[in-house]
């Protein structure tokens, strides 16, 4: 059969690579013969050949002595596919089509294997194949593809570089744990691969960020789905640990990625992951020196960085949708009817199941609330730059007013959600952190809440405390605000009933 013939040809290739180096002339002759003699002459043949070669390589892996060389065939296959990518003249079709075809074939063989027999499926050969692509491409692209002698090809490959990674990322998205649980751990290893993750983080013009966020969100969604109160499996626990480690690595190498994408990460982070939340929100720009947050004499208005608006990669405005007009109109001229419209738009039609600490479901739209709060912050930050601090650091400003009214007129749950999201903005020194410290401190002491005052105070303290009782890191902004409240002349925390009535809480605050 043609499949058997493909097996023979591929076996010859594997044998050849065990005898000569991959840049030997014989290799080029072999590849040329593959094309000239009809093995790879058209797309049907190409698909048939690659499919057969991959199936044989996976079979070879499964049959090999596990203590020996198990990846000989897989390594040879990845070498062949990359060679073909470089050597073809791409007259009738594009590099993009070639790569998409290759990945589609891999996905096809992989998914058949994954679905067919759980007992025999093994993720390792597929991991190795994809890892090899990353290694081969990394070698090829060194110093802007300088090793590619032909200038035209070199230029094409250079302009294709970002696309290579984005195509790879798109396919990785298809392989995600929800779709192929038997590949989960290999998938996480690929996402964080040393020749993928740091490259995606550093592509020019942040070209890899969107797809990278897609993959990180896939991971967070998976964790979110299976982080069930009282019964988290060992496997999910291990997924969590790996995720945490990856975020720590990103925070060290490219904190700017976490800073600019915090909004979408918060939208998808499981609600009870307090430490990971802190890890993400604690990211500080490289080279920024941060003043001691526990200094009770800290004057935020004198810190230069507290004038600067943080960059957001994804504009939250896109998520406000139907409420954008009412929100922007309210920010121009506050009115009760606009407020009514906004608040009504924040309630869900179905329960949102969440494994929260103290609650199991929500009735308000967490993402929409986050979008609005961040949008208000962005606008306030812009106005601060345009006009003056007085316009913005002002309880009469519409920015403050909107948040105050949402809390005042909303249910307890809405109060909680708005305050939680405001506290998420307490990050490294920047104008949003500074503004929300101002707003929250004022909201904590103001009498304007009337009979709702203790409720609001308790929710603020709860939201701060849950960020502070966890192990390090803690965000700078939370530490600053918490210190200010602990040292406040206006409200003595230890006189508050809701603290004194709970012994464990009282004990905690006495310690603090």
């Amino acid at each position, binding site marked *: 059969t043609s499949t058997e013939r493909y097996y023979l040809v591929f076996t010859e290739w594997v044998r050849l690579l065990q005898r000569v180096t991959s840049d030997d002339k014989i290799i080029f002759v072999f590849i040329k013969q593959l094309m000239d003699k009809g093995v790879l002459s058209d797309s049907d043949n190409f698909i048939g050949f690659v499919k057969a070669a991959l199936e044989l390589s996976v079979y070879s892996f499964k049959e090999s002595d596990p203590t020996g060389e198990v990846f000989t065939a897989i*390594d040879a296959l990845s070498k062949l596919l990359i060679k073909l990518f470089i050597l073809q003249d791409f007259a009738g079709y594009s590099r993009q089509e070639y790569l998409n075809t290759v990945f589609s074939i891999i996905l096809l063989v992989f998914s058949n294997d994954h679905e067919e027999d759980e007992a025999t499926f093994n993720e390792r050969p597929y991991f190795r194949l994809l890892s090899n692509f990353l290694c081969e491409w990394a070698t090829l692209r060194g110093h802007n593809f300088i090793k590619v002698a032909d200038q035209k090809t070199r230029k094409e490959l250079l302009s294709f570089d970002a696309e290579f990674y984005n195509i790879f990322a798109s396919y990785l998205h298809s392989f995600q744990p929800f779709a192929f649980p038997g590949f989960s*751990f290999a998938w996480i290893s690929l996402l964080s691969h040393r020749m993928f993750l740091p490259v995606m983080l550093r592509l020019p013009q942040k070209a890899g960020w969107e797809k990278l966020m897609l993959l990180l969100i896939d991971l967070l969604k998976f964790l979110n789905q299976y982080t069930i109160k009282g019964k988290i499996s060992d496997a999910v626990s291990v997924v969590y640990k790996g995720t945490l480690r990856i975020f720590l690595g990103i925070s060290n190498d490219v904190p700017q990625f976490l800073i600019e994408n915090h909004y979408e990460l918060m939208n998808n982070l499981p609600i009870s992951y307090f430490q990971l939340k802190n890890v993400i929100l604690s990211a500080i720009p490289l080279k920024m020196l941060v003043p001691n947050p526990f200094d009770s004499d800290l004057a935020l208005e004198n810190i230069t960085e507290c004038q600067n608006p943080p960059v957001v990669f994804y504009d939250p405005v896109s998520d406000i949708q139907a409420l954008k007009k009412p929100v922007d109109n309210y920010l121009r001229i506050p009115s009760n009817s606009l407020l009514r419209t906004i608040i009504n738009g924040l309630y869900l039609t179905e329960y949102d199941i969440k494994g929260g600490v103290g609650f199991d479901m929500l009735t308000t739209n967490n993402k929409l609330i986050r979008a609005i709060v961040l949008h208000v912050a962005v606008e306030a930050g812009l106005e601060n730059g345009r006009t003056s601090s007085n316009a913005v650091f002002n309880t009469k400003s519409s920015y403050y007013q909107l948040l105050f009214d949402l809390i005042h007129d909303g249910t307890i749950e809405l109060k909680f959600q708005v305050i939680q999201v405001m506290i998420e903005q307490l990050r490294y020194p920047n104008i949003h952190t500074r503004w929300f410290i101002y707003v929250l401190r004022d909201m904590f002491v103001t009498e304007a809440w009337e009979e709702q005052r203790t409720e609001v105070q308790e929710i603020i303290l709860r939201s701060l405390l849950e960020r502070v009782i966890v192990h390090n890191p803690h965000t700078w902004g939370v530490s600053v605000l918490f210190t200010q409240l602990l040292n406040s002349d206006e409200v003595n925390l230890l006189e508050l009933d809701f603290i004194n009535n709970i012994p464990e809480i009282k004990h905690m605050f006495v310690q603090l």
Partner: protein
Amino acid sequence: EMPPKMVSQLESSLLNCPDSLDADSPYLYQVPLSNPHPTSIFFPSEP
């Protein structure tokens, strides 16, 4: 909750989790520095 089939697939994935050796650069033929030669059994046999 995770369906039983998914549970076992996830556990199987954990068992087969690739390690750093799997992620290393592909091992392909390189011109050897020296030809094979029988050496003492006491010498290290792995590089």
